[in-house]
């Protein structure tokens, strides 16, 4: 367990805080949960870096999929779930294609996001996406620019999705209500969370 320091100065305390990794920081159940949810052998990562090397997000952000794999192996639950980078995976599955240990890192990230949701740790834009899907059936609903482009291409202004068939929206809402997604999204947004 990290030792507390008491200098009577919060800024200094933060700067000089104990950065050792203690095995007590690990929650072994975290790895088990990740494995169950992701259905992949998350504990077998040997840190080769192929995933990050394949990742389109890595060169554009601070997101390192390999780092999340490591946190998973070590059970560093809080460190993984509280890192906003968790939400920067594009789910392109390039890493899953190439991982030499035949792990699906993408699914590990999805599992961690699921676990984060349980702690209400979700970025606002993801929560807003939940609301949009609930209300329109689309994560990215149609807009005027799109409509104009579609008409120019000789298409109908709205695609034959829930935009064209709004009567299917209640069905989607039923599914989402079952998982209390919308309620939770509303609540977290209202609490002014992340």
């Amino acid at each position, binding site marked *: 367990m990290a030792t507390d320091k008491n200098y009577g100065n919060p800024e200094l305390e933060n700067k000089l805080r104990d950065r050792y990794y203690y095995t007590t920081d690990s929650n072994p159940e975290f790895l088990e949960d990740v494995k169950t949810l992701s259905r992949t052998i998350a504990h077998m990562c*040997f840190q080769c870096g192929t995933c990050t*090397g394949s990742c389109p997000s890595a060169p554009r952000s601070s997101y390192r999929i390999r780092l999340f794999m490591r946190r998973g192996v070590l059970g560093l639950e809080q460190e993984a779930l509280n890192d906003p980078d968790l939400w920067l995976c594009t789910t392109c599955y390039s890493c899953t294609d190439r991982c030499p240990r*035949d792990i699906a890192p993408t699914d590990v990230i999805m599992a961690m996001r699921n676990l984060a949701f349980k702690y209400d740790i979700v970025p606002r834009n993801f929560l807003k996406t939940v609301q949009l899907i609930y209300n329109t059936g689309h994560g990215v609903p149609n807009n005027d620019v799109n409509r104009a482009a579609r008409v120019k291409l000789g298409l109908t202004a709205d695609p034959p999705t829930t935009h064209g068939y709004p009567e299917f929206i209640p069905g989607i809402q039923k599914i989402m209500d079952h998982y209390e997604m919308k309620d939770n999204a509303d609540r977290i947004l209202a609490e002014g969370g992340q």
Partner: protein
Amino acid sequence: MAEAKEQPRIGVFICHCGTNIAGSLSIEEVKEYAMTLPGVVAAEEYQYMCSTPGQSLIADAIAEHKLNGVVVAACSPRLHEPTFRTATQEGGLNKFRFEMANIRDQNSWVHMHDWEGATSKAKDQVRIAVAKARLLEDLEPKSVPVEHAALVLGAGVGGMQAALDLASAGIKTYLVDKDPTVGGRMSQLDKTFPTLDCSQCILTPKMVDVGRHPNIELRTFTEVENVEGYIGNFTITLRKKARGVLSPAEAEERGIVGGGCNGCGDCSEVCPVIKPNPFELGMAPRKAIYIYHPQVNPLLYTIDFDSCVKCGLCVTACGEEKKAIDLDMVDTFEQVKVGTCILAIGYDLIPIEEKTEWGYKRYDNVITGLEFERLICASGPTGGKLIRPSDGQIPKKIGFVLCAGSRDNTGGVAKPYCSRFCCMYSLKHAHQIMEKIPGAVPYIFYMDIRSFGKMYEEFYYRIQNEGAKFIRGRVANILEDPSSKNLTVFTEDTLLGRPLSLEMDMVVLAAAIQPKPEAERIRQMFGVSKSQDGWLLEAHPKLNPCGTTTAGIYLAGVCQGPKDIPDTVAQAEGAASAASIPIHTGEVQLEPYFAQCVDELCAGCGMCVNLCPYGALALVEKNGRTVMEVTEAKCKGCGTCGGFCPGGAIKMQHFTSPQICAQIDAFLLEGGEQ
């Protein structure tokens, strides 16, 4: 057929194997139970039955209790059956009065967390073994003489070393290679780590020696067609492939005195057919009549009849005196008799183009480590000038992709194992470019640098000190710039935690290695198993790394698993030593598990004769009747005939029907009425 009926007096000895067995089941209960079994007059337990005191326990008990059967409940018979047979013999019994119950591998190791279940299963196993022990008979092993000759298959550095050792120990040795020359992979290498001596320079003396050693019968361009027999007496049929060219000796046999190929190469000069040279991995041409390279041994030209157009130009060029070329030559067969064999058939690279992310065969400037060896070698296709295949320019930034297809669990062509020499040869390659190309920088992309051998870590230190850049990250993919043909390598520098894209002039893939495709056929002919990774299986990974489970067959070099030259040579010397023991002993004992014909019951129908996979059976006339007879030395005790004979006339020694039925009864009736 037990002669005088003797009362069974069985001793049961239960081993703790430290805690291996005693930690998972109740030895005490099993011992008490054993004493209740019919025929058992003594039961003992001991920490390690295989130790000297453990073995004395058996020998002493035989004398004290007048035992006529011994049961040891312990580990697998694979290692310790011989141990306990010896102990049985030392106690004054015939050594086949011994039966083993494997309560470790087949019980305590599998049921580690089920004390009750394991204990009860051990009782079953002991009961079954005792049931057989009650019916055991004295048997005499058969001694057969050993042929004073050996065969080594594959004449790479491993096979050549083994053959030289055997030959120097006074044993006539057939050294067989499917290629037109000896030398194997090592003759394709430029320098060798970690000493950097020239590969050809240290190999050529051996190549020459195997050609002129009086005890070595060299057979190049030759394959094994068929294997028959058993330790001491193998009969091996060799197919001498039609080479189209006569050696001086062969010419003399045909009455062409002073003729035969002298290696002048006049034929090759006139041959109109041009093909890629496989020795140069297709990077240099050869003619339809060719030698791989100037140092070949034997120095004999070979015709590739698949591409020869039979124009006859070479015949004319060769001339009337030598008359070395015979365009109508056909394959010939030869049978050799040997006592033992060593397999040393080496390896191939995996088809690394199937790992498409690295672009081999799609991008001109991505090559394999083996191609690098040829390109950097002074006798290679470019005279030792490393150039980019795309434009002939000298590369300055060269990437080395380690573990290309090794340590990879994704299936397909990838291999889960470490190929064991690619780290080291990539370090060597890095050194070679820094030495030869001013300003060249090697970038080594690695996961771990495995420099485990003697002076290997020092070599790693040296190459880093010379300026090689080490990047810890496995290469994710490579992209080619279509106009410059430069390559961009993508990975993560895992130590910085940053993604990397590096432009290279050339990339060398340290491709994984795999068994030869023919290894499967060879293995089946010689009766050798393979391990789960596909390499030929040694008898024991630690205690018998040169032997196989087939007596008389030994392994050397990479065909048993990835290894570098020092390890290959060491194993080859070990295999040669092991293979010479039966030959020098002069005779071997065969397990007496032969089929026996009970003449009174045999109807002479002969149906078994064709069933025997080893051709061990024949019909003979005996006392005016036709009966079957077994050639004991050929019989492997497989039981095919014994299980089939409609009259029950075939007795499988040590696995007789009464013995096996007693075991089944003991199991099913749980010790009840039999």
